[in-house]
């Protein structure tokens, strides 16, 4: 047994790189999936609406941990080997898609119907209507909750520790097993998460207040 030192802090900080990387993968993949979900749910096409709504309900109605387990234990069954990396990425991307899709659906539907109708009256088809009229306005409303949701994605990556992905939490467990100083180890782990998440929370809050000021003139 040894005592907790600077080297251990460094070890956890290096693991933080993987937390950040996994968060980025989840967020970028989830943004692409989320946009598809949001557009499907607002498309008016019965099949698309039903499918995307079911997807959202399943991923919002089940624990992220179960989604991770299913990706980790399920993928080998379909015939390919899955590393904790890949399993965590798949589960987090699908989960983030569902939540961002739900947030963005609300933002798209918040655009007054008159805007859709005006675009339609101007002879704009679906793609230019969304691209030129609806999405630019929805984007402004969507920005604060999207930044806020990044915090949830970051915190969600901690569960990847359970399937053996070495990020901040797993690194903390490893150090704790070697030093038996849980109080300091998990305080450091918590502090690193806080340092990553708090600025994002503050930014989201500030953006929200600015948006409120801009829209209540």
């Amino acid at each position, binding site marked *: 047994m040894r005592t907790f030192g600077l080297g251990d802090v460094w070890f956890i900080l290096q693991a933080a790189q993987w937390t950040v990387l996994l968060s980025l993968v989840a967020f970028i993949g989830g943004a692409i999936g989320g946009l598809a979900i949001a557009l499907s749910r607002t498309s008016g096409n019965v099949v698309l609406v039903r499918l995307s709504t079911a997807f959202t309900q399943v991923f919002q109605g089940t*624990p992220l*941990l*179960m989604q991770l387990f*299913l990706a980790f234990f399920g993928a080998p069954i379909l015939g390919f080997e899955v590393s904790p990396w890949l399993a965590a990425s798949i589960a987090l991307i699908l989960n983030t898609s569902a939540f961002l899709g739900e947030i963005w659906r609300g933002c798209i539907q918040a655009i007054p119907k008159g805007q859709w109708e005006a675009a339609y009256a101007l002879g704009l088809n679906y793609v230019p209507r969304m691209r030129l009229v609806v999405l630019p306005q929805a984007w402004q409303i969507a920005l604060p909750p999207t930044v806020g949701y990044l915090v949830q994605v970051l*915190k969600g990556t901690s*569960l990847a520790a359970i399937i053996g992905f070495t990020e901040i939490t797993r690194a903390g467990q490893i150090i704790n097993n070697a030093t038996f100083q849980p109080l300091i180890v998990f305080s450091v*782990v918590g502090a690193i*998460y806080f340092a990553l998440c708090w600025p994002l929370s503050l930014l989201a809050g500030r953006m929200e207040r600015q948006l409120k000021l801009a829209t209540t003139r």
Partner: protein
Amino acid sequence: MNYQFEFGAVFAAWPLLLKGTLMTLELSLSATVLGLIVAIACAWGKTSGPLPVRLVVNAYIELIRNTPFLVQLFFFFFALPAIGLRWSPHTAALIAMVVNLGAYATEIIRAGIESIPKGQIEAGLALNLKAHQIFRLVVLKPALRAIFPALSSQFILLMLTSSVVSVISADDLTSVAANLQSRTFRSFEIYIVVTAIYLSLALIFSFIFRTIERRSLSYPDRR
């Protein structure tokens, strides 16, 4: 794909799964009741307490909302016993859930209190209503109406998050799944079934909450 699905062993263990489901429900419900008490106290402290109280409550909320539940769980289970606070996995899980929900619910309740326009209370005073009448008729129902959807989805979120407590081997549905897995080795089947149970719970509760909202919290039709 030549995997043979084998659900027999999983379904044969239905009494265990039922017990796990009840444990998850028991844990989530008790954490919600206790968490709401914490949240009401904190919301009061944050809106009308003295400055030091407000600072402490704010620090608590920011700290909890910006760290993962898993780390909070580890902190209560592994770290606090090191300074003499020792408890069972079940108690540690419950405390972590109460502390976690408390922070989120404080913000929801505070928003609910602040959503009541001051003019409404003044109007109640002008109508010569007594304080308890104003609270019951003017403040409580609109405030409940404002916070109910957020609180109910927070409850469902807590129930789903509670699956994480299996990591410290606290008793819940997911820990039952983990035990079954080590006995039968049908990991994928077990997690499919358990995921389906969580999904049913989430759908049932959101149906119940929507019904309550429609029946008891909406205003009568003015037509």
